[in-house]
């Protein structure tokens, strides 16, 4: 088992327009990306559970060219609307950091 905070190269969130939030997890090598993809843990169901949205509202895109997984979800409160906590949406990634990815042998960082 390995937490995303310990194995990802990038884990970030940002607005994709004022009404959607997009979350990216990027890995260093193709072998690492493939190992994570093979577990099936990083997917729309995980994002739906972590961010309390319906799985059908998660646009999930594996992006092998960028060694990345991308999830886009509706914002609970549009950017800058009353009660919004994060106008840029750039501090909503933390729940992913502690997600465990069940890989037995983690590939090294060498491409």
């Amino acid at each position, binding site marked *: 088992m390995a937490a995303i905070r310990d194995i990802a190269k990038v884990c970030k969130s940002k607005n994709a327009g004022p009404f959607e939030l997009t979350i990216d997890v990027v890995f260093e090598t193709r072998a690492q990306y493939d190992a994570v993809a093979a577990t099936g843990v990083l997917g729309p169901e995980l994002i739906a559970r972590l961010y309390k949205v319906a799985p059908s509202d998660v646009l999930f895109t594996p992006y092998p*060219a960028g060694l*990345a997984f991308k999830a886009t979800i509706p914002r609970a409160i549009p950017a*800058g609307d009353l009660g919004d*906590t994060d106008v840029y949406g750039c501090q*909503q990634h933390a729940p992913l950091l502690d997600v465990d990815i069940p890989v037995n042998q983690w590939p090294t960082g060498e491409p």
Partner: protein
Amino acid sequence: MSHGTALCRMLSTSGILGYGFPEASLDLGMTRGVHMLGVDGGSTDPGPHYLGSGKTLNSHRAMRRDLRLMLRAARRHGVPMVIGTCGGAGGTPHLAATADIVRALAAEDGFHFRMATIEAEQDPASLKRAHADGRMARLPGGPAPDPAALDRSARVVAMMGPEPIAAALDGGAEVVLAGRSSDPAPWAAMAMRAGLPPAPAWYAGKMLECGATPAVPKGHDCLVVEVGPDGVTLEPAAPERRCTPSSVANHSLHENPSPCIHIEPGGILDTTDCRFDAISDRAVRVSGMTWNPQPYTVKLEGAELAGYRAISVCGTRDPLLIATLDDFLARVRDAVATKAAALGVEPDGYRLIIRRYGVDGVMGASEPRRDARPHEVGFVIEVVAPDQDSADAVLALARVTMLHTDFPGRLCREGNMAFPYSPSDVACGPVYRFSVFQTMTVDDPLAPFPIHFEDV
């Protein structure tokens, strides 16, 4: 430059006009035979305030600094300068503020040129006719198109594609200041005018819209992109930055719902089959992008007044209070409601939001850790009301109620909160919210965007 050239080299100075960039990078980048330089001027990212209020995102001082260097570089090299989404939100006041700065700089430096300004602000009456004609469509996550929202909005802009910018350049403009525009539009316009296909032209714009962000290390700096018929080559201007296949591929993730499908006015840029090849340790060539034409739509963005805000900042270091925080804040809310009613402000006449930094200030209701009990908690007390006077009055009550409300086991009987400032209360003025976020089908990509030419 002449039409039909098989290559077009373009420079972007930074992510947004006024963010700043190293002067040396601009000078170095311009020596690479650049055909045009530009910068994107804004986005919806900083929130609805700028569109609603008409204020610019960055200071006039910062825009002036960037524009002076850009204008000098453009005039020295005899190439066009194009600014997209002027002033942050691209409405009429934002465009006017940017144009005023350019005119003043030209006068100071003794430059004369033909300038085009392209309006993007829309008249609600014509938008309502388009609504009645069935030309509006909802965007993912956005509100359903509603003619009443068009009326309520303080300002509505449409996002232009490359066509109005290309028309301005065709009209002889050497400086083009565009209102709200698709971020890649300035560069897509220039490349397509040079006879290059839409796919690499749009891709180049997608990379240039954020300055050197596709390079590592990240920073507000200049990027040069060369567009050819089959792809683009990216190389940052500053020698200490590098584009790598992964840094460029990952830029497709930035602020997009999908890294592969990019919906733009008039079509979809599909980057699913892109190849990223390092051609040096600092330059990357990207090929394999495709452009799929679609019915021509423009995005509409509107902001409406949501009230007036007042805030106060404070914190507690009292573990007894922190242990009973939810109950304490419920008590504060009840007391504020009673006191506000005595001032003639009923509970539905204001909104009280108490942000709790250290507990759930960053994620709010979606914070998964509900049990955090830090040693101190910071608060932003916020009141939004229909007028500033009511907001100020209720905030003052909320502030003193936070300070002096009793709680079980209280030992700190002189006050619950540390306030760092006197005065403790800040009147923030009007608050806007996004009211319109949808697309509109248009027959003519130029029609919503009048172009004004002037000799500066």
